[in-house]
């Protein structure tokens, strides 16, 4: 992989992880978690697992939607 793209993905993963750990609001945590997931995808595509990437790209939002079923009435 390119160095610049790799460094950008690593920065995405690290910032998303730190923000997801240290935020206290559930919505902020979910947003930071999706930044982390965005950083993982260039690594999967770079290995050439395109079918796995397609499936995980459609599976990963379901986890967030399931989690939103719990945190809806707590915050609003």
């Amino acid at each position, binding site marked *: 992989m390119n160095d610049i793209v790799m460094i950008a993905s690593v920065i995405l993963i690290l910032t998303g992880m730190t923000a997801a750990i240290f935020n206290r609001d559930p919505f902020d945590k979910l947003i930071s978690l999706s930044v982390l997931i965005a950083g993982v995808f*260039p690594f999967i595509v770079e290995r050439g697992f395109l079918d796995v990437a397609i499936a995980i790209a459609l599976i990963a939002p379901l986890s967030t939607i399931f989690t*939103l079923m719990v945190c809806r009435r707590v915050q*609003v």
Partner: protein
Amino acid sequence: MALEDQVPVVAGVHMIALYICAVIAVYAALRVITERNSMRKLPFLNVVSFAVTGIIALLLPHPLTIAAAAAYFVGSTLESNAIASTWAGGLKRP
């Protein structure tokens, strides 16, 4: 596949677009974590997912990458829509 024979992948136009996508992704991620309001984070999250879609589409010279980019685009848009809609309170039940 005919385009790859003419344009070399290792240097040239592809690389500039890829670098621009990477820089935009990093900038938007930094804006996401420095923003205070939870609703203002969502447009920058969309920018992150657009930039990553561009990276996925441009990274490998393979015809199936466009399908992967489309799948990621659909998934991330659905996710951020669900977060925004839940934050706004959802549908009013009759």
